[in-house]
């Protein structure tokens, strides 16, 4: 009878499936608790305090007063939220439509010469830092020496247009830059979604001469919707937090025209150091983000529930 070689204790530890799962999960859970759960709970607690870093006073418990102040503020959360929702809906909408269109274009042109170079160039805006992009576009938009003004004036004789200083244009000028930056992301997600569609089903549909729109709804959308919706969800959450693009471009101006919710949190927390108030504001934004995510997930699973 041959002796069974003894196994190291670490290997024996994984014999029990439950222990193995817990051991593998532990680092992730630890990371999540330390860097996510505790700060979130801290944030929640701080939202009930009056605490300013520059006051030199200890935190004072004030119940829900921060929340009441936010809801009652004259120029506060409501205007910022409506502006932010417009930014998110318009921005993500345009990026999805354009991104999907470009995605289909590249999907259907696999043999096109220079496709890889074109794709690389297309994705370039996405990898730039928003601060750098914002700074570049501030110069591009400049009414005195900006290249966009030179072009528009040269072609159409528009005269100088103050893209970032005119209250009726500034918001859309910033949104256009956001779309320039993030449409490639939606193109990428569209390509990934299209890549997840089984070739066999596409070929079968083609042999059966199924019209393109039917193919789109029955085959492509059926398989690709999860990836595409994930892209939309990620962009929605990201767009809701837009800050680093706006700071170099307009700093929220002119007036309040480009002041989104993240600008206000940044101002209150890191310029005015009102930690209690900004925590309360952040809690509300967190709840809104959770609500939006839930709606997405609900819509995504609606059909499955109906079918089930």
């Amino acid at each position: 009878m041959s002796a069974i070689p003894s196994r190291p204790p670490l290997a024996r530890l994984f014999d029990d499936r439950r222990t193995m799962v817990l051991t593998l999960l532990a680092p992730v859970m630890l990371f999540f608790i330390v860097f996510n759960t505790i700060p979130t709970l801290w944030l929640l607690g701080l939202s009930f305090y009056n605490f300013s870093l520059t006051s030199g006073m200890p935190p004072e418990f004030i119940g829900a007063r921060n929340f009441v102040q936010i809801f009652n503020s004259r120029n506060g959360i409501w205007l910022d939220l409506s502006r932010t929702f417009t930014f998110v809906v318009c921005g993500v909408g345009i990026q999805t439509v354009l991104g999907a269109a470009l995605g289909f274009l590249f999907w259907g042109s696999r043999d096109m010469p220079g496709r890889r170079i074109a794709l690389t160039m297309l994705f370039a805006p996405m990898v730039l830092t928003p601060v750098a992009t914002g700074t570049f576009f501030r110069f591009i938009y400049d009414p005195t020496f900006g290249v966009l003004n030179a072009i528009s004036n040269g072609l159409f004789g528009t005269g100088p247009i103050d893209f970032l200083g005119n209250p009726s244009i500034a918001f859309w000028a910033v949104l256009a830059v956001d779309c320039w930056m993030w449409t490639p992301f939606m193109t990428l997600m569209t390509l990934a979604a299209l890549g997840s569609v089984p070739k066999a089903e596409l070929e079968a549909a083609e042999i059966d001469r199924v019209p393109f729109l039917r193919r789109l709804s029955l085959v492509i959308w059926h398989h690709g919707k999860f990836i595409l919706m994930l892209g939309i969800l990620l962009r929605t959450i990201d767009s809701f937090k837009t800050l680093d693009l706006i700071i170099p471009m307009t700093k929220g101006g002119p007036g309040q025209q480009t002041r989104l919710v993240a600008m206000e949190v940044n101002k209150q927390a890191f310029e005015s150091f009102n930690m209690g108030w900004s925590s309360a504001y952040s809690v509300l934004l967190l709840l809104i983000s959770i609500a939006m995510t839930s709606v997405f997930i609900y819509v995504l699973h609606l059909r499955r529930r109906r079918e089930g």
Partner: protein
Amino acid sequence: MTVFKSPGSGSKFVLPRRSLLKGGAALGMSTALGAPFINRLFAAEEHPLAGQSIEMNILGIAGWVPSSLGVKMSPLFADFVKEKYGYNVSFAFAEAPFSDLFQKAATSLATKSQEYNIIISDSQWLGALAKPGWILKLNDVIEKNPALQLEWYSQTVVDTYMTYPDGTKDIWGLPQEGDVEALYVRKDWLEDPKEKEAFQAKYGKPLPQTFEDFDALTMDEFEKIAEFFTRPDDQRWGFAQQYSRVYDFATCAFNNFLWSRGGEIWDPATGQIEGILNTQQNADSLQAFKDWLKYCPPGATNYGIAEGIDVFTQGKVFSTIQWAAVGSAMITEELKGKVLVVPPPKHGTGDAAKRICSMGGQPWVINAFNDEKKMRVAIDFMNWWYQPDTAVEFAKRGGNPCDKATLSRDDFNDINPWNQTYKFMLEEGRSRDFWHDPKYSEMLAIQQEGYSSFVTGQSSDPKAVLDYIACAQQQILSDEGVAKTAPSDACATTSL
């Protein structure tokens, strides 16, 4: 040694003259050669850091010439302490733009870090840095260091860079760089015979040419000059000033109008803002501030310090109100001899005309959490900074010292083209700073939003804008306990 007995000297012994001379020379030589070592040994014994090496960190303002001068001159301090006190010091530097520097300093100081041992603060931050106890109170330091007991050029220096709360004797900062608003004009355009003739023909008076001419100028008279040089077809405009929403840019530029036209922004004694800021008179000043946009290049509502420098140095504007501190950036190599730096025009007419402009400039503040060694070096640094030689060197490199001795030198006005105006505007009553309250950042943000909203046309009623700002600021000071009264019921309806 042979000893001679001199005639008539009795029993006294006398050294020969040659030996005496030799001995004296040897003693003198040895003293001269040995003095530095003896001094160093003496200093080493005297100074607790002698023989040690210390690393210091300075936090300053990115892209700001005077701030960088403080940093660039620090090797001179290293040489000075090595020689005088026998210790080595080296410096590392961190910087951030104006609008982000407080954030960088505050987040570090809030953790009681000594990451930045010496900080170039902005004047309005004194309260926000002093109240939580982040910076060192300097009264005792000044009392123990005679070199810091300077006579400053005017009380404005003390009020702006040193004192918090306003009106008290509590000192928290020492002036790193003095700064005032100045009007930079293109001297070569003014001296052009064709322009002179055309202006005379159009307005029936000559173009001003000298410091004195501009000193006597009112805004109404200056407006004609700005109008004259505004030629959009030639890509030239008459004027530029700061309207930007960023940091305090619009506020500083507008306060020139507000104060010079007799307005006030608050009552420091009671913390009252509502009813003081939002007067019809100040609303008219805000309208006047906006009206000057017609002589500015397109996009001027986004102009801050850098944009003002750009359009002036590119030859797009005839004049701009700009800080004296950026003189070396405004007067480039190409523009040397072509620029006149003069006081901004007065507001009003006749004897009632006056000018009160915003103070700029920054104080040094010392991190209260410095360990003993770094605190000692920081204080040595301050002692060195205000030495006459250092102050003159600072001025020669383009900085603006604040002590009376340096500014009173006969050659001071000739050191830099803006020095005469700097000195003139630093005199009492010609420039002033706004609040030093710890809540300044919040109050400033509301104000910047309001002014930006008005100048860009998002809001059309200047009185309504001031009502909104005054009510919001009154609420902040009331919550803080600085204002004795809460905002009135009328504030419920204000908005931008």
